[in-house]
């Protein structure tokens, strides 16, 4: 199992982390996981919501401020 790619959005306020996620995820292989670091409180809500709207998989939050997204298409 390879480590997920990292996207560091710490210090950015929403919607910037979601915009960065939207730009980065299409560059991953389908099935790969992107790990997003974001300390804006809105990210906890908006990253899962973006996944739902975009049909991507929210793979969980292993720690506070850490979010994993799997590219499904």
């Amino acid at each position, binding site marked *: 199992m390879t480590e997920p790619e990292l996207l560091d959005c710490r210090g950015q306020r929403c919607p910037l982390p979601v915009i960065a996620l939207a730009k980065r995820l299409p560059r991953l292989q389908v099935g790969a996981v992107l790990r997003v670091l974001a300390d804006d409180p809105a990210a906890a809500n908006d990253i899962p919501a*973006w996944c739902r709207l975009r049909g991507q998989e929210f793979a969980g939050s292993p720690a506070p401020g850490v979010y994993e997204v799997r590219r499904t298409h």
Partner: protein
Amino acid sequence: MARQALLAALDDGWADPSKLYAQARRARQLLDAAREAVAEVLAVRPDEVFFTSGGTAAVRDGVAGRLRPGGAIVHSAIEHSSVLRAAQRYQASGGRAVSVPVDRLGRLDLDAWRAAVTGPGVAIAVLISASHEVGTVQPVADAAAACDAAGVPLLVDAAQSVGRVPVPEGWSLLTASARKWGGPPGVGVLVVRKRTRWSPPEPDAGPDPGPELVPGTPGVPAVVAAAAALRAVAATAQAEAARLSALVDRIRTTVAATVPDVEVVGDPVDRLPHLVTFSCLYVDGEALLHALDRRGFAVSSGSSCTSSTLRPSHVLEAMGVLSHGNVRVSLHSETTSDDVDRFLAELPGIVARLRAEVGV
């Protein structure tokens, strides 16, 4: 209407209604008439109506009159901040607060509500009649039945509904805010049904224990204006609700069709007539608010960047919907069909420009 009543009452009802001289008796008559008018619109008895210094004070006093040390308060996750603050204060003094979740449309989870109100030591349950942020109407009748079965009084925060849409029966306490029905600011209403065990927060407030003498009572002129405004809006509420609801339908369908990547939130059918909320992906809520303001549209937002705490709206969070790029449009009696059309014509371009600025 409210303005005329306010100006007349300023001339006629300025005196202290608890005194006995002629001007004071006149003020007392105006106050009694106002209470009767409010009671009639709400279909309750006049001696069940208390005037407070606003909707927040009505909630605070309504809740405080039920709470005792070591009990519990149950509320939905999407209550107004006045309710959440009352629950926090109670927790700080050793009480328990149970927050009941909502679904993605913002509707109360009734099974979780039933379980919560049957828990130990519940002194009061609080439910908003309809979400003040997304408009979704709450299942008040079912929630009230669950409270009744558990022997728990239900306080309905009806600030969004009074003067617009009927509030289902079955509650024990009800709160509302005159500002929300077109009355003056600084007047709230607390209704406590007679069968409810409830103690005024400060029972020794005055020599005359009339219900209007809750501490922080607003002045008579403002109360008179509030009652006049309520009677006026109640008379036309049905027609106005139909008119605004059609405009909200137009906003919901047009925004979804003309703005890409937008999430229109809340229940599309079982909702308040005048309120619509949507979130635009990749857009900064504050920038959107200012862009709309420059074009003459006064709207609100639940996005974190528009809040002093930098947290997104607890209502949007509880629903799990997108919180950035959020716009809440609240229509009123002077909103015209042309206003709505102009808003809908300008919005797609505004959103597109803001997105272009951040390269999406």
